[in-house]
Every structure is written in structure tokens, then in C-alpha cells.
């Protein structure tokens, strides 16, 4: 009986350890940030391609088709990254804040680059890319603010619950 209980306990401990390893893999920050990076890269590329496509005059049909294909590929990668982040590598509050900071940083760089190009070249494509970059930067700032707000709210709730539980003991 004791031996059997010992085996059962051992097996339960093993099962718990296996699930904790699964959690570690499933919740790793690195894999999430890789998909955030993919999303940022795909959206930046899409902004550049669409800006060129919309502003270049008298493009031949095959170039238009090429731009359409590249835009489609960019949208597909964005859709894939969003799907993974919503359903497979769901982001927790800490991940969201890091992702928000990454988004602000990289869209900020993009705006800076597009802005310098627009000032130097005055090309319509650069101005369109700058406008698209500004929209993306606005979205990134909104995401970061929402993530920070959520994290502060959760921290406050955690501290309050901890206090209440400590008092009740």
C-alpha cells in the first residue's frame, strides 16, 4: 500500500513537472516577441510597398501585379502573426508591454527614416510612407498605453488581494 501510494505520488509529481515544462515552453517571451517582430516587419514592408504602388504614376500592368502580389504576401504574414498571437502564443500583460515598446521603437525608426527621405527627396512615395508610418506609430502608442494601463491595474489588484489575504490570516 505504501509502495503503491509512493508510486502514485511520484507519478503525480512527474505529471505536474511535465505540465510546468509545457507552461514554460508555451509562455516563453522569446517566441512571442519573434511573432511581434514578424508583424512589425510585415506591416512596415506593406506600408513601403503600398506607398510606392499608390504614388508611382504610369506603372505597367506587370509591375502593378507584382506590387499587388507583394502586398498580398505582406497581408498574409501580418494575418498569420496576428492569428498566432491571438490563439497560440497569447500575450500576457508583461508580454504586451514589451511588444508595445518594440512597436513604438520600430515604427518610430520607420517614421524617422521616411521623414528624412521625404525632406531630402520630396518624392510622393516618401511622403505617403511617412503618413503611413505616422498612422502606425499612433497605433503603436495606443497599444503601449493600453498595455501599461492594464499592467498597472493588474499590479494594483494583485497588491490589494495580497494585503486582504494577509490580513485575513
Amino acid at each position, binding site marked *: *500500500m505504501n509502495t*503503491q501510494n509512493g508510486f502514485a505520488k511520484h507519478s*503525480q509529481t512527474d*505529471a*505536474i513537472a511535465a*505540465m*510546468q515544462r*509545457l*507552461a*514554460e515552453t*508555451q*509562455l516563453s*517571451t522569446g517566441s512571442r516577441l519573434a511573432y511581434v517582430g514578424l508583424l512589425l516587419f510585415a506591416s512596415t514592408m506593406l506600408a513601403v510597398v503600398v506607398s510606392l504602388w499608390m504614388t508611382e504614376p504610369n506603372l505597367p500592368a506587370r509591375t502593378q501585379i507584382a506590387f499587388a502580389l507583394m502586398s498580398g504576401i505582406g497581408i498574409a504574414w501580418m494575418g498569420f502573426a496576428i492569428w498566432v498571437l491571438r*490563439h*497560440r502564443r*497569447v*500575450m*500576457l*500583460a*508583461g*508580454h504586451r508591454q514589451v511588444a508595445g515598446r518594440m512597436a513604438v521603437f520600430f515604427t518610430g525608426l520607420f517614421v524617422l527614416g521616411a521623414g528624412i527621405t521625404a525632406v531630402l527627396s520630396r518624392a510622393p512615395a516618401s511622403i505617403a510612407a511617412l503618413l503611413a508610418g505616422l498612422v502606425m506609430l499612433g497605433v503603436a502608442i495606443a497599444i503601449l498605453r493600453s498595455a501599461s494601463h492594464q*499592467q498597472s491595474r*493588474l*499590479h494594483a*489588484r*494583485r497588491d490589494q*488581494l*495580497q494585503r*486582504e*489575504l494577509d490580513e*485575513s490570516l
Partner: protein
Amino acid sequence: MNDRVIDDTRKKADELLVVRCQLGEALAFNDLIAHWHGPLSSYVQRQSLNETTAADVVQDIWLRVFRSISSLRDGRNLRAWLFGIARRAWMDHLRGRYAAPMGAEIDIDTEPSLVTSGEEEVQFDREFVHKTLARLPSVEREVLILFYLEELTQQEIAQVIGVPMGTVKSRLFRARALCREEIESNGGRP
């Protein structure tokens, strides 16, 4: 401490665990698993009576938990939420199994016998409860497991199963009667 205070403290502890998980604290997930793996495993094992199947379903439950805990609005409902996920994972497993071609998966009652002659009374009682439950229809068995073994309230069971509380009460009533009949018909033996 009276029951209400204990229940309130338990719910606060559940909410604290959920909030820590939503913040992304790695240790919180370890605590969540350490605390709930046992109850979820035994719930599934009592439904499936097959250890391999149960282990697969439990892993599926944890994957669903990791992927959806950030959207749990009220952490005080953790218990009902977890068992709701466990139930849906089990139902999805059953749907998959019945959709598969006949003979694709043999999943009959293959639980290895845990009891040998001369074992102590505690083991005998466990076997007795297990066998009595196994003879009940699944609808009644489920409410008995959740109410008596997993200690969910009737309201929490209603949330888990997705039926009104009156239905839970009537199922519990019927389950108790069936259980009594089952025990009496066997003269109190498993």
C-alpha cells in the same frame, strides 16, 4: 471561521493566482499547475476510466488554460472556469473519438486494477466509490463528481455544465437516488 469567510478567502486566493498569471509571472503558472493538476486529472480520469486518454485530455486542458487565462474576466470564478474548460476538452475528445472510424481507437475501460486481495480499507472504499460512479449514467455521474469529489457549489456546476441551477439540483437529486439504488442492489458491495 465560518463557511462564508472560508469561501471568500478561497475565492480571493483564486483571483490572486489568476491576476499573477495574467501579469505573466512564471511562478504563478507553476502554482496554478501544482494546485489544480490533481483535481483536473482526477475529474478526467473519473470520466474516461483510461489513464492514457485522461493524460492526453489533461494536457489539452492545460494548453487551453495557458491560451485563454488572459481573457478570464473574474478570477473569483477560477474553479468553475477550469472545470468548464476540462468539460469542453473532454466533450471535444469524445466528439473526435465518435467521429473516428470504428476500431480506430480502442478506448474501453482499460484502467489497470489497483486493488489486490488483502489491501487496506481506504483502497477498498476508493474502488467502491469509483465502481459505483462508473455504473451511473454520465449526466448524473458528472454532477456527483463535481459536487462531492471536486467540491464545486451548485452555482459553479451550473456554470461548468451550462445549465440552469434548477437542472443541477434535479440532476443531483436523481444522481443521489440512483447511487443509493446502486449500492442497495449490490448489498453495499462494489
